Structures are given as C-alpha cells and as structure tokens.
C-alpha cells in the first residue's frame, strides 16, 4: 500500500492524482448539469441537493425531466432501479474490505459510482489503502457537486443554449469506450446495441427495462453456451437452467460452489 509505505505522502495527495483524469470529465459534466438545472427552472441550490441525494450522474439528468413531468414515485423507483442496477456488479471487485468503520463503509457504498468504481477497481488488489479509497470517493463527489454549483450559478447568467444535454450522451459513449478497454470483449457492446434498438422499436415506453433485461439474458445465455460448457461444472445444467435476468443474481451462489 503505497501511502502506508510512504507515510509522509498523504492519502489525499495520492487520491488527487488518482482522480485527476476522472475530474476532467466530472467537472464539465457537473457544470452542464447545473446549467441544465437552472435552465429547467430550478433555483441554483437544488443542484447540490440533487447531487447529494441522487448522486448518480446519469440518473440526475434523467430526474430533471421525470420530476418536471410529475412522474409517480413508484415509476421513479423503478427507473432508478433499472438505470442503477449495474451497480450491483461493482461489489464484486470494489475493495470495501479495506475501508474500516461503519460510517466510512456506509459512505463508501453510498458513493460507489461508475467513476469511483473505474478508478478503484482497476488497481491491483491491495494497492489502495482504505483512506485512499475514501479520498478518491470524496474528491469525485466534490468535483461533481462543485461543478454543478458553478454551472448553476454561471448558468443563470447565460442564455439558453440548446444541445447541452448531449453531454450525457457523450459521457455514456466515453464510459462505454473506457469499459470496453477494460475487457476488449467485442460481442458485449454489439449485443447491447441490438437489444437497445429492438427495445426502442418494440417497447418505446419501457425501453431501458426491456433493453437491459434482454442484454443480461443474452449474456447469461452466451456464458452458458461458451464459458459454462468449457467450465465442465455445469454439464447438463445448461438446458435445465431457466434463462432470463433472474439467474444473473440467483445462480451465482450455486455456480460458484460448482466451479
């Protein structure tokens, strides 16, 4: 653990350099979010309220439209569940065990965003101390909330600029490329494009639900056809196993014991 080997080098300094590239993405996006908030009619201080309570960048952008349309809370809950469902996978490789104390652990889980996951989970196991992990998360939230407040304050002085919401599309595209670089698995994004287009054509009102469920189902199917067979452990189990999004969370326990 570098910052423990060199106690003179504080964890926050290390975290500052860890998060610099992500900050370059988070600050301007926070700015765009703040601008969009005031241009949508919100007082500037709603921006930090959104950024602290929701604290999931993509969902915050979606929430502007949802609350302006007076969307029922149940729909908001379902939307949140679907948009943020990917976060359940982050627990697999996020080193929460290095973070000590119930308050710190609670914050570490609350602040487990795409960006902090990307910074923390790409390091070698054991490379980061608990303090450094927490500082990475605190700094990421500071970039996001700070950028949002700045955007909301400056944005109220600016005229309406159509097209700023493209920052959300650009962010997802950038995160997709970064995620692809981590795995270099070509079929996954291709399956996702197919699912997204089909879902948009078949069920435009429930596009996210249908696309993400279909995508996970196809991934599970692909695993069972290729990796599962290679594994040997699930021989004969492939046909009997029901496909769908459920097994993604239901099967792992048994799958793990088999392997």
């Amino acid at each position, binding site marked *: 653990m570098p910052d423990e080997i060199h106690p003179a080098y504080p964890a926050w300094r290390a975290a500052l350099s860890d998060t610099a590239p992500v900050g370059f993405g988070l600050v301007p996006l926070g700015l765009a979010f703040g601008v969009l908030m005031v241009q949508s009619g919100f007082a500037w201080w709603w921006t930090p309220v959104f950024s602290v*309570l929701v604290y999931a960048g993509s969902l915050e952008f979606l929430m502007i439209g949802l609350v302006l349309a007076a969307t029922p809370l149940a729909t908001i809950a379902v939307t949140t569940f679907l948009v943020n469902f990917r976060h359940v996978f982050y627990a697999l490789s996020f080193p929460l065990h290095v973070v000590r104390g119930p308050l710190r652990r609670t914050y570490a889980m609350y602040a487990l965003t795409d960006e902090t996951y990307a910074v923390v989970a790409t390091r070698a196991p054991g490379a980061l101390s608990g303090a450094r992990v927490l500082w990475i998360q605190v700094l990421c939230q500071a970039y996001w909330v700070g950028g949002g407040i700045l955007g909301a304050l400056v944005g109220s002085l600016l005229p309406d600029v159509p097209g700023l919401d493209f920052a959300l599309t650009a962010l997802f595209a950038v995160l997709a490329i970064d995620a692809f670089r981590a795995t270099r698995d070509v079929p996954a994004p291709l399956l996702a494009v197919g699912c997204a287009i089909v879902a948009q054509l078949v069920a435009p009102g429930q596009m996210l639900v249908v696309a993400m469920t279909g995508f996970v189902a196809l991934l599970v199917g692909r695993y069972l056809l290729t990796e599962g067979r290679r594994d040997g452990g699930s021989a004969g189990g492939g046909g009997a196993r029901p496909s769908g999004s459920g097994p993604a969370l239901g099967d792992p326990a048994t799958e793990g014991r088999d392997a």
Partner: protein
Amino acid sequence: MPETGYLLAALLTTLVVTFVLRAAPFLVVERLRESRIVGWLGARMPVGIMVILVVYTLRGTSFTTAPHGLPEAIALVATVGLHLWRRNALLSIVGGTLLYAGLLALLG
C-alpha cells in the same frame, strides 16, 4: 415547478433505491466473488449498459425529418473519435457537446 415536498420525496426515493443497489451486494459478496459467471458478467455488463444508455439518450432523434439525425450522428462520431484518439474524457465530452450545439445552431 413541482412542489418541494414531491421533489424531496422523489429524490429520497432515488437515494434509497440507489443505496440498496450499491450496498446490498456486499452482504453476499464473499459468495458472489467465488462465482465465475458473475465475474464474467460483471466484466461485460458496464460496456453494454453504457451503450444502451447512449441509444436511450438519442431515442428522441427523428430520422425522417430534417436534419435526419445528422447532428447526433456527427457529434457522436466526433466524441468517440476524440476519445479513441486522445483518451481525455474532458476533451471528448466538451468537444462532442460543443460540436452538437454548433450543429444544432447551423442545421436545426
């Protein structure tokens, strides 16, 4: 503008659901970590989810009326190109967004 009470209830709803999604898996993480399929899925989920969200944010684009989704297509290609080239999220996001806003002003 929505009422403050409704707004806070909506934001708290997202807070609770998001926290549960982020925290609950840690309760079973030791069992999950040994699972090969979840590790395999976890490695491939992020790219797909991001791609689906890209399509989702562009779902309002009309291809049948002018400018036929041209600003979206050009700005997306520019964003991806910038990111493949420079690997700088700031440059990619701001560059793509400014280009899109400019194209809207020109073609929209």
